[in-house]
């Protein structure tokens, strides 16, 4: 094997950077969509909304039992067909790989975040609800101002851990021919033949991003432990 030549990385950096940006953008978008939908899903189950509660539960069970890569395929091939049927003329409506990725990751993450939040909701002390009732707070304000902020705070380390996994999973978009960080590296590696350097560098970047996030998880846990220490 040739000796390692990392100068190649400097040349490749702009392309890798754009791949990293795509990974981060996808993570951020999936996080936002997933948290909003996940919170809604958790609340629907928490309030035991008649039909919607069952639907959401079935959806979550389904999503959590199949691999993400399969969900990506489904969305990429099925959603255009469904849209075609809905629009009436029966011809598939392509929604594009990027949109597919953003929507799929968001919907996929929603199932995971929703489970975290649902468990968090159950962990809130009954006294908190009673205090809200005694103060005549509406159900909306009870959840918006008292219950959900506490759930999100308690669950933030787990949510962040899940998001780190999400960040790593964004590499699956290669099946949609999208170029994320890993995709950028492997394309370059095939062009310049410097596989070892390229894969080492992306591994370091993944390591850097994930361990920075892990540091955040640790400090969140610590802060929460300290806040809880007095009671």
């Amino acid at each position, binding site marked *: 094997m040739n000796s390692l030549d990392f100068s190649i990385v400097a040349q490749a950096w702009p392309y890798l950077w754009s791949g990293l940006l795509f990974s981060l953008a996808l993570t951020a978008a999936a996080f936002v969509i997933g948290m909003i939908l996940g919170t809604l899903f958790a609340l629907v189950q928490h309030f035991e909304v008649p039909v919607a509660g069952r639907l959401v539960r079935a959806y979550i069970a389904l999503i959590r039992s199949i691999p993400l890569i399969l969900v990506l395929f489904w969305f990429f091939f099925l959603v255009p067909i469904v849209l075609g049927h809905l629009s009436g003329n029966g011809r598939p409506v392509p929604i594009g790989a990027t949109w597919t990725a953003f929507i799929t990751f968001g919907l996929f993450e929603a199932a995971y975040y929703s489970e975290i939040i649902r468990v968090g909701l159950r962990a809130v002390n009954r*006294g908190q609800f*009673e*205090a809200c009732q*005694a*103060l*005549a707070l*509406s159900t909306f*304000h009870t959840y918006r101002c008292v219950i959900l902020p506490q759930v999100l705070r308690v669950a933030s380390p787990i949510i962040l851990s899940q998001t780190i996994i999400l960040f790593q999973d964004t590499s699956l978009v290669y099946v949609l021919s999208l170029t994320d960080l890993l995709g950028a590296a492997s394309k370059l590696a095939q062009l310049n033949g410097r596989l070892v350097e390229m894969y080492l560098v992306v591994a370091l970047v993944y390591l850097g991003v994930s361990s920075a996030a892990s540091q955040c998880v640790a400090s969140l846990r610590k802060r929460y432990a300290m806040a*809880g220490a007095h*009671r």
Partner: protein
Amino acid sequence: MFQETAVNVTSRSSAIVAVENLVKRFGQFTALNDINLTVAAGEKIVLCGPSGSGKSTLIRCINHIEKHDGGRIVVTGVELTDRMTDINSVRREVGMVFQSFNLFPHLSIVENCMLAPMKVRGLSREEAHERAMGVLRQVRIHDQAGKYPGQLSGGQQQRVAIARALCMQPKIMLFDEPTSALDPEMVKEVLDTMIGLARGGMTMICVTHEMGFAREVADRVVFMDRGTIVEEADPETFFRAARTERAKGFLQQIIH
């Protein structure tokens, strides 16, 4: 017998809380059975009785944290029904203090006090802040306003809980064993706060076994056992000469 006299002692018109033939069940179990209690504006009631006698359940029915199964509850002229408008108009006028404080741990002390006035009473942030600081000063804890509940002692937290309720400017305050979760050295600061409140003319219904407090502020002591009101009297009479055996037995126990 006692219950009937109690209803007649205070005329209906001056009653701020009127409980008539109240029944509360948990499944098969009857927690409250035919309770009658009338409280006049400005009156201070101490509720006592053995564990499981239904004291908490009774005061929790008064602000509809527990839904009653029979009888009538009229608070500040509004009868508690299933309608949320009635429930909320009662809750706006009734403050409650819990044994375990139930402060909001993610909000600072002053924010704990500002939340409901802003969301329920529609105060602006500035108005709510001003009111909260005023009340926190009244319970002598304003210097902790920026801290979080977890950073305060139990006694301080309970005083904050009282302040939080007072910021809604309630007409009635309910207390459910406010000092029984506290270390002994912190009981006094909370009782002193409650005594101050009583002197200010607040209508109070307190579940407590603090007999010194009862002697000092209560107009009436109501003794409950097994879901009924067994005896009511002014504190001196009750402590010196309880009429029923059950009350005598109970007093024997808490003295030791």
